[in-house]
């Protein structure tokens, strides 16, 4: 029986989820003078205590996960792997093929439920969308067009880049900007400079440039400059990485108008009369069920492109028989996952690749939707030594250096620091067999259906993956790598961090879930400001900057009278 809470603060707007989108939304609402209540299912991690980069066994410590039961996902059966694509299988020169089955396998959905969300473990790439990739339907007959143009989004990108403190080059092959970035680009690491090998035609052809990063190159906004420890993905203990909580949420809290309740898990939303969401039901930190009556106050959902559609589909009742906001039937559809391929090799020189910033350079050469010959949807390349976790003694001992005993020891001394890895992340396009739904039988500990990921790679996706693998190998061999030691990617595994599309934006209420201002077509006080709204995923760009730009724009344009 839900209790009504006496001790909740007064609020004008509610935000569900404190990740990239949630924190930006909260900030924008406070800027408008509104009082905000943020409900985040996960904890507030304390970097010094919860992240492990200072320990001698740091390599064995994954990013913490204290909400395992609240983010379990299930998977529908995956496709059979074909012999003709065996060269795309994940492989290590010591350990062989990691997927020995005949089927694609689920590896992970890397999702952080916490104050700060997945920005806590992200590599801090801060990318705008390529304007050329925002009209995929009109230009190429795939996915859907963005109902908002790059030009309209541009001023919001500028705002977000300032708040985050993005560092990078001011001239880029990727997109143009109306204002300079707030911070200069980071110096390129010695290892990454090998990729730039100016003596090689094919390397010059890649047009490598510094990456735009949410990592300060100089002290910024109360955060120190990065100290180049090479481990953004394990959680930044140094305090420099521009996670959503250290930027947007911090500023929102400083206004005094924002309250964050962590450990509060939203169970369902209740649709009511007059196209208003009436109620939020959640479980608080003390395991009490709390019911909040909204009384027309807006609610912003930011649980990510897998958990946001789950919440909407669960929230079915007589007013919303197909699920809240699902009048078009599109909630959960057009799911776009992360498509990537990584190749690692051993360089002939001691390049010290365990030092520096993980993804410090980037090639946008093949990023435009028509850049890859014979394939629609582009990709981008960057060094992935750190992201592959090939940046410490343990990983070398187990994945790089073969053998045992004194031979192994000698080889370790010779090879440590010589790995150079490069990865491509590519556009993911929707197909009919790839969507998010609810599991028909399995439920979580609250009795609520678990979310189910249905993922299928179509021919175009496999071609894109193939191109990425080919190109990665070419890049490595052109940069002084003598031997390929490992390759892995999303051909034989579902392995996603960037996810999109399941509550897409559009002008037409019949074929989309929210309008160009991220507001539900039907439900007047329902907004979605995470990556669920992306009509297409772009040529492999990391989505956090775009999520935040869309969020602050949605709040700025929000007109509750209409």
């Amino acid at each position: 029986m839900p209790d009504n809470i006496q001790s909740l603060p007064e609020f004008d707007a509610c935000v569900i989820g404190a990740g990239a989108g949630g924190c930006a939304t909260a900030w924008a609402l406070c800027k408008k003078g509104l009082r905000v209540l943020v409900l985040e299912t996960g904890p507030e991690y304390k970097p010094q205590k919860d992240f492990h980069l200072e320990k001698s066994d740091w390599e064995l410590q994954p990013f913490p996960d204290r909400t395992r039961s609240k983010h379990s996902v299930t998977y529908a059966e995956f496709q059979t792997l074909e012999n003709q694509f065996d060269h795309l299988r994940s492989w290590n020169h010591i350990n062989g093929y990691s997927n020995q089955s005949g089927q694609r396998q689920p590896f992970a959905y890397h999702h952080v439920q916490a104050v700060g969300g997945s920005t806590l473990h992200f590599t801090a790439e801060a990318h705008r969308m390529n304007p050329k990739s925002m009209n995929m339907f009109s230009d190429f007959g795939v996915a859907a067009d963005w109902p908002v143009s790059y030009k309209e989004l541009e001023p919001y990108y500028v705002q977000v880049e300032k708040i985050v403190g993005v560092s990078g080059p001011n001239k880029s092959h990727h997109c143009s900007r109306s204002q300079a970035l707030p911070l200069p680009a980071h110096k390129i690491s010695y290892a990454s400079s090998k990729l730039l090998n100016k003596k090689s035609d094919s390397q010059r052809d890649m047009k490598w440039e510094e990456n735009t990063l949410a990592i300060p190159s100089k002290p910024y906004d109360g955060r120190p400059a990065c100290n180049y420890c090479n481990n953004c993905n394990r959680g930044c203990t140094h305090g420099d990485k521009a996670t959503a909580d250290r930027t947007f949420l911090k500023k929102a809290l400083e206004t005094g108008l924002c309250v964050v309740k962590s450990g509060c898990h939203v169970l369902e939303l209740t649709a009511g009369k007059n196209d208003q969401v009436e109620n939020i039901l959640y479980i608080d930190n003390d395991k009490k069920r709390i019911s909040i009556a909204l009384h027309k106050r807006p609610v912003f959902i930011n649980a990510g492109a897998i958990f946001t559609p789950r919440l909407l589909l669960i929230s079915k009742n007589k007013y919303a028989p197909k699920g809240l906001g699902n009048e078009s039937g599109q909630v959960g559809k057009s799911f776009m996952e992360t498509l990537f391929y990584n190749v690692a090799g051993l360089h002939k020189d001691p390049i010290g690749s365990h030092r520096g910033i993980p993804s410090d350079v980037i090639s946008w050469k093949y990023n435009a939707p028509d850049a890859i010959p014979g394939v629609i949807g582009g990709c981008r390349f960057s060094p992935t030594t750190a992201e592959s976790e090939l940046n410490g003694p343990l990983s070398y001992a187990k994945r790089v250096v073969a053998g045992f005993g004194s031979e192994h020891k000698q080889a370790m001394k010779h090879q440590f620091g010589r790995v150079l890895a490069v990865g491509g992340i590519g556009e993911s396009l929707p197909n009919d067999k790839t969507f998010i739904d609810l599991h028909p039988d399995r439920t979580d500990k609250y009795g609520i259906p678990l979310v189910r990921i249905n993922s299928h790679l179509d021919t175009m996706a496999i071609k894109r993956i193939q191109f990425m693998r080919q190109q990665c190998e070419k890049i490595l061999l052109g940069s002084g790598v003598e031997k390929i030691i490992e390759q892995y990617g999303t051909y034989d595994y579902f392995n996603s961090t960037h996810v999109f599309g399941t509550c897409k934006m559009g002008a037409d209420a019949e074929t989309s879930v929210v309008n160009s201002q991220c507001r539900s077509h039907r439900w007047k006080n329902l907004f979605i400001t995470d990556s669920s709204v992306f009509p297409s995923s772009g040529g492999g760009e990391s989505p956090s900057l775009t999520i935040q730009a869309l969020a602050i724009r949605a709040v700025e344009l929000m007109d509750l009278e209409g």
Partner: protein
Amino acid sequence: MRISRRQTIKLFATAFFSGSLFARSAITHSAGPDSKEFISPLSALLGFLIDDEVNIQQQVLKKSLQKMQLDLVYEKTLLRGLSQLDQLSVNKWNKNFTALNAEQKSSLIRSLQNHNNPFLQRFYNTVNQTALEHYYSLPESWMQLGYDGPPQPAGFADYARQHTKPA
């Protein structure tokens, strides 16, 4: 009183490193015939895989024993594998693994790598990979690699130079 294998490992681990005579005698009095036989070959095997000073080898052995207490699969793999290792050694040279010379040890371990018995391959991978994990998480193993230590709090200061170009 019959002491379980698990208790034996725990007792031995404590005895070995604290030098407690009482614990040692408890083992010889009450334990079953094969419960401490694995320590000798395990120690010899790890010592050979790690190839470092005695006190380092002991630290790695200790970590392995601790892991055996916590991880049943690891414990079973090791016990079964060590017993088979001794058997192979006796079959070939009429001696236990611990009594082999370096060359013989090397050849025997090498034969496990691509052995047609999949269990032995798995045993080799498990014990070698775990030993390496334990060894390279010891600060003493880093200097030879030119590796300074965990990523934080030092970072790599030589990269952290101030930019001279204006923003």
